[in-house]
């Protein structure tokens, strides 16, 4: 078993008077796809905000490759809960945003991103504005913006929650295929049980606010997972639902 890439130790966070994260400890190994599953409002997005430095922790440790995550190190490429595409930038310029911030010129950044448009199903939409794209395409553009930053790890906050069921299922398949190919180290937030089982190697289940880790489940189904109706998958789904609906500490 390889050393963890990311390790959270007893992470705590409170907003004046409101305890949000009580005790979050989890690990993600290199090349592993890990999901965080939890009820709405329990503090899932807050975990990512602590990781990206948007908020300060009130206790606990974040280790990346075994060393504390000091200020200024940015090993994460973050995809926020809503796509956060800039309406005033064309799709190509939205996807190059992270590279531009890293200091690449606009043309260098475009050169780097352009070959990926086909793979992300955005071919021919480079010069469109976000308002001209469907919900699914917007999410793919946001994901493209995330992965081209070539960070050590992806943080995906409910990337498909805003989509209709059919588009979401398509996007989940697509993401799985992409992951098969690239083997990103990824941490995914979701409150969709089936999505978690479909995509993850491991799943952490969180309690209601103040959140702590309620359960950790390893999904040892073989990839690619096409058969979600298999007894193993159904059993894990049932266990997850059971844990979420009847939390017993």
């Amino acid at each position, binding site marked *: 078993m390889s050393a963890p890439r990311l390790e959270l130790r007893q992470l705590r966070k409170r907003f004046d008077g409101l305890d949000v994260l009580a005790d979050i400890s989890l690990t993600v190994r290199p090349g592993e796809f890990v999901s965080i599953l939890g009820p709405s409002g329990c503090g899932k997005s807050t975990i990512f*905000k602590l990781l*990206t*430095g*948007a908020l300060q922790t009130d206790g606990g440790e974040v280790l990346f490759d075994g060393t504390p995550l000091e200020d200024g190190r*940015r090993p*994460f*490429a*973050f995809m*926020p*809960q*809503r796509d*956060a595409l*800039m*309406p*005033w930038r064309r799709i190509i310029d939205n996807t190059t*945003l*992270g590279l*531009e*911030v*890293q200091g690449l010129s606009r043309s260098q950044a475009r050169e780097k991103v352009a070959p990926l448009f086909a793979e992300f199903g955005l071919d021919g939409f480079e010069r469109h*504005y*976000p*308002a*001209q794209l469907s919900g699914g395409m917007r999410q793919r553009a946001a994901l493209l913006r995330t992965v081209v*930053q070539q960070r050590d790890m992806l943080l995906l906050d409910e990337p498909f929650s805003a989509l209709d069921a059919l588009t979401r299922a398509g996007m989940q398949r697509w993401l799985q295929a992409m992951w098969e190919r690239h083997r990103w180290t990824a941490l995914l937030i979701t409150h969709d049980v089936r999505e978690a089982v479909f995509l993850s190697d491991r799943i952490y289940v969180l309690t209601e606010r103040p959140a702590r880790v309620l359960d950790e489940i390893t999904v040892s189904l073989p990839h690619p997972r096409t058969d979600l109706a298999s007894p193993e998958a159904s059993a894990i789904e049932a266990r997850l639902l059971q844990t979420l609906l009847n939390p017993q500490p």
Partner: protein
Amino acid sequence: MSTSRTRAGVFAPVFSKIAPALLSVGTLVVAWELYARFSGISAIMLPAPSRVIGQALEHRQALFDNTLPTIRATVFGFGCSLTAAFVFSVLVDFSGRLRRALFPVFIISQTLPLVAIAPLVVLWFGFGLAPKIMLVALVTFFPMLVALVQGYAATDDDIQSLLASMGASRVRVFLLARLPSSLPYFFAGLRISITYAVVGAIFAEYAGAAKGLGIYILNAKNNFRPGLVLAAVLVCATLTLVLFGITVLIQRVAMPWERLDQGRRR
């Protein structure tokens, strides 16, 4: 047959958009014309629109000569005010302390009655361009500043935390996110302020000027020429409409994505 149908298809939407405005303005003008002609009111009290237009044409050279200084005062005054509003909006966006120090001063500046201030400013700075620029700036600066500051504050939080996660500096976040986010607010402020600007310029001239529509109106009034007063008013209105139209055009060019959004909403 088919060509005329396509043509109607192209022009019908434009026409149906401006038809209500044409109808309401047309009705007002016709009512005014009928009242002035048949109520027996004297032309000294209320000249008919046809007479106003006649006078405007007759005195077009004088009107033109007096319009140029007004345009100059409006454009220079508004330009100064825009520049100042932008500079201060940036300062205030980067420093909360500066904001708390300056905003009360700006708000007080908005409470000064123009009727009282205009003659004083003219008294201090003379009949030249300077006092006009100052008065135009006084009435337009604050609305523009507020529009910009509000626009920065309207920036999507997700976009900002995304940029922070990418390691963008404060200045970078401002340039990449806050500034573009303020554009719709900026243009809304611009459309309102440009109408204030013309009124401000006229008012400043009214308080004392060598030339300009404001002083022209004052003289025409003192000579009991309501036809000329209204002719000058017509020029003011046209000037304001043209400036307003220019801001709308600039907005269309500057924000091509905005019309896409609206197309979606409708």
